[in-house]
């Protein structure tokens, strides 16, 4: 990692955080009026929006309808100006398709799809500014949007990334840390049960260190859950005040 010290001797990272410290998370539910559910999240400089439509009738060909559960449809797209270098296409490229698929798998694990047979739930995630931890931000914002839409879920889906530098696991990697090329692990957790909804690791990492990194990511995801839970509770409180209950 030429010339860039990701973790100083004193234990500080490039942006001044400690190894297991998260970036600041700010979120808001119900940002759009027309969608069934919507949410916005800022994790450090990463900003993402999610919109949920449904459950509704299957759009397009009826043959896609599942007789026993709802179809979860996810689309990931990232604004052309979101990255440092301008992107040519907002969606439809390989990475976006993969992200869409992973989101879908994570949410099929969490949404009680059997309650809505022969229907469809659309989750659209849009990244407005990318600064590392995109997958985690997308999962977190989509969770809030699904909750805002009032779709029954087993649990929150909370995600966080983790890396490994100089024998230490780092939680919630920023873009600089991701670009340095070390191992990185993305983890989506159902915090109440501790079940893992998604696990993905890039680059190489010795087996002995895996547990440490996994533990760091899981702890970070639980921390994210605390923040998201507070956001949801605050939103419900605000909404109930508005309704006059």
């Amino acid at each position, binding site marked *: 990692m030429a010339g860039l010290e990701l973790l100083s001797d004193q234990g500080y990272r490039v942006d001044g955080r400690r190894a297991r410290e998260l970036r600041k998370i700010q979120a808001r539910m119900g940002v759009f009026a*027309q969608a069934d559910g919507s949410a916005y999240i800022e994790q450090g400089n990463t900003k993402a929006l999610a919109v949920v439509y449904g459950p509704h009738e299957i759009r397009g060909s009826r043959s896609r309808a599942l007789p026993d559960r709802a179809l979860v449809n996810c689309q990931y797209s990232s604004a052309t100006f979101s990255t440092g270098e*301008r992107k040519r296409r907002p969606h439809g490229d390989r990475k976006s398709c993969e992200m869409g698929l992973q989101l879908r798998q994570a949410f099929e694990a969490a949404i009680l799809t059997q309650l809505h047979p022969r229907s469809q739930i659309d989750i659209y995630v849009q990244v407005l500014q990318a600064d590392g931890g995109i997958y985690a931000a997308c999962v977190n914002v989509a969770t809030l949007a699904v909750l805002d839409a009032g779709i029954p879920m087993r649990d929150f889906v909370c995600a966080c990334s983790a890396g490994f530098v100089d024998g230490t696991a780092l939680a919630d990697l920023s873009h600089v840390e991701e670009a340095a090329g070390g191992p990185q692990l993305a983890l989506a957790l159902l915090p109440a049960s501790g079940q893992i909804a998604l696990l993905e690791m890039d680059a190489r990492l010795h087996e002995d260190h895996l547990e440490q990194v996994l533990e760091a990511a899981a702890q970070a995801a639980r921390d994210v859950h605390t923040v998201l839970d507070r956001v949801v509770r605050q939103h419900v409180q605000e909404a109930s005040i508005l309704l006059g209950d």
Partner: protein
Amino acid sequence: MSLATRTEFLDDSGCGCCPQEDLRVDGRGCEDYRCVEVETDVVSNTSGSARVKLGHTDILVGVKAEMGTPKLEKPNEGYLEFFVDCSANATPEFEGRGGDELGTEIANTLYRIFNNKGSIDLKSLCISPREHCWILYVDVLLLECGGNLFDAISIAVKAALFNTRIPRVRVLEDEEGSKDIELSDDPYDCIQLNVENVPCIVTLCKIGYRHVVDATLQEEACSLASLLVAVTSKGVVTCMRKVGKGSLDPESIFEMMEVRLVLRQVLGPGWECLLLPAPQSCCGHSPHLPPSPQAWSLESSWCELDVSELAKGAGRERGGLRDRDLPPAHNSCLSSASLIPGSMFLKENA
């Protein structure tokens, strides 16, 4: 046809409004805009960005300046590239490739309204003739559709261009004739674009025998056809288009252009003072102070402007173009609030 039947016909048109009596379903008059919110400097990794909210329509525009080679036919000018992303966030119909058609249509309209020498000084984007120039990628992202897309997009594009800061570069030439480009060290040493002549679009929707500005989705659905006029604050029309499936009488086109003249008076100066940095601009005392780039880069501004109030104010000043009086509650038509930069979705919804 008697007047009574005409009115009935209009009432049956489906939107439940009665433009004949200058009263629309949401209580606005035919020439009233909804409240516009403009926020600049929202995405930090762009050269300039803006978010505009017009009723339920929500637009985010990012401008990225990249270095490239000038076009062959215009060797000493830079150029603008437009791209409109109709994301599935706006409506599920835009999923996959569904939004491409509308996106291309809007992008082409933007190309057309900027296709003249006056709109923007493209020569200032040239670094060295025939070799290097700045290309401004203007990327529009539709976050929510609530009618009147074109007007909202043009406002957002103008605000984003106003917010654009392009780093100043120098071309150094050594004895052998090889050129080297040097970027300024000072992050505040940048060029700003003059957006005074950047046009805004005013869309006039024909409903029955009247036309309305700033139509909502429902009003657009029962409009036969609409006229789209791009006009600068000086009153220069840079583009005109008829959109929609219906047809328009030439008479009514001229009638619509009249309304546009009134609105231009309103929109032009209104936007300019809106785009100046907060808080001086928004108090209305000195709306033409030159913006200081430092203040801008450190603090984003968020302003709210009720154009219809401005319209009424302007009407009064110009000798009673409209006979309705300004409501006493609205002493100031501009209000402002300072926010943490880029906190766009985190503030309370009004």
